[in-house]
């Protein structure tokens, strides 16, 4: 398994949404609505993350009768580690930027 060299903003937003969902399964349209990522960007990202074993996917039977099954997603253990590392990196960058802004103001 190889970690992507640099994640895009969309990838980070998707990982954050999946991390927030925890062990709960999420659907494609739900993720698109939550993150504001359009389906044209979302699905290639989901495909890539699943291919890199950061994401698991399964077909889930419908809750309401007459509805079709839906493809659902959640992070694997490796995916959670990646999402946590990305979140920590974002926090670090925010702290550094905040510190510089403070120095400039003083």
């Amino acid at each position, binding site marked *: 398994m190889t970690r992507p060299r640099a994640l895009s903003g969309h990838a980070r937003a998707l990982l954050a949404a999946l991390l927030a969902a925890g062990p709960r399964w999420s659907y494609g349209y739900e993720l698109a609505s939550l993150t504001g990522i359009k*389906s044209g960007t979302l*699905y290639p990202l989901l495909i890539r993350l699943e291919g890199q074993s950061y994401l698991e996917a399964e077909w889930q039977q419908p809750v309401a009768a007459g509805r079709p099954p839906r493809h659902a997603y959640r992070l694997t253990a490796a995916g959670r580690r990646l999402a946590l590392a990305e979140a920590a990196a974002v926090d670090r960058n925010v702290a550094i930027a905040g510190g510089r802004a403070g120095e400039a103001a003083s």
Partner: protein
Amino acid sequence: MRLARLLAVRILSAASRLLPRHLSTWSSAMAHELIAIDDDRAALAFAAGCLRAALSLAIAARVRSAASAVRTLLFPSAPFSWSLPTMNGISARPRLLGLLCGAAAVGIGMAYMQAAGAPSRYLLVNLAALVLGATAWLALGGAARSRLAGSGRATLAMSAALLMTAGFGVAAEGASRWVSVGPLTLQVSLILLPVMIILYARRPDAPGTGGMAVAALALALQPDRAMAGVLAAAMIVVGIENRRRLPILAASVSAAAFGWTLIRPDSLGATAFVDRVLYTAFDVHPLAGAAVAIGAAALVVPAAAGLWKGAGDRSALLAFGACWSAAVAAAALGNCPTPLVGYGGSAVLGYLLSVSLLPGGARRGEAAAFGSSAPRGPGPDDILSELRAAPSA
């Protein structure tokens, strides 16, 4: 069903057809997600995004596949037991093999022109045509698999362009075969005729037969002995292969048009780096001559290999082989453009466009990875029926 919802379904069906086979689970995922969206406008936006995703994924898959094939050809350093099956796999894929043969022929031609001191503009034009043709090859991937319902009408429209060229095209020494596009002069028949031939070979219907008859008339009027010969050779092969009334009629009309061009005077002189390249290359160096001859012969390899391997539509492969064999023969016999190895972007475009419509053949990797029971993406009908079954919002 409301218009926006219907449009969304149609768009998603198109996306589903575009996606590579190994991603069929994902096309099902998109389709089922669409059904779960209650708002029609949101569903339409979602479907449009899915189409964009499918397009980018399809292009990426094709680029990866072509790059892998080129790598295998250029660096065959792998063990014999590995590289031979790979080469066998490529030879059973006429579309991919055609792209590689076309690129090789253009490369050989550029090397010859460079060695022979041709203007650098000639090399750039052939290279630009190769890039343009390869892009069309990528974009037309779906057409190679589809049933081409409108191919007859497309053939008819293209034949009208040939007729217009005969009437209003750029004329030289009694022949009217070209159109001016900015600084370039294109030979319309070299671009369109190979495409028309493959489309007709795949689906020899009544509009297509009309198109081939109009094309034969246009070539007789231009007059263009070489391309009339190309058309006649391909139509005779299609007629013999199909043995039905319409293809035999197309073959008869094409043969008559070719006969007419044989009795008309053809006074066009040879143009350096365009005509008689199969001979002049030997003046540069015997190796350059041999390379150019090999490059020209490579043009029919996709048809020969495809027929040998049973790689799909036999009629299209035969027509392709006849078309480009006749074009090379015409270049060897008279003052006719030497396709791909000589200067001329029209032949490069015509070759790659016709290659785009050849059968794709079996994908070894996919077959091995997913087997024949691999889940397929839902077709338009599957999605429509699922939508009808779903409760409306």
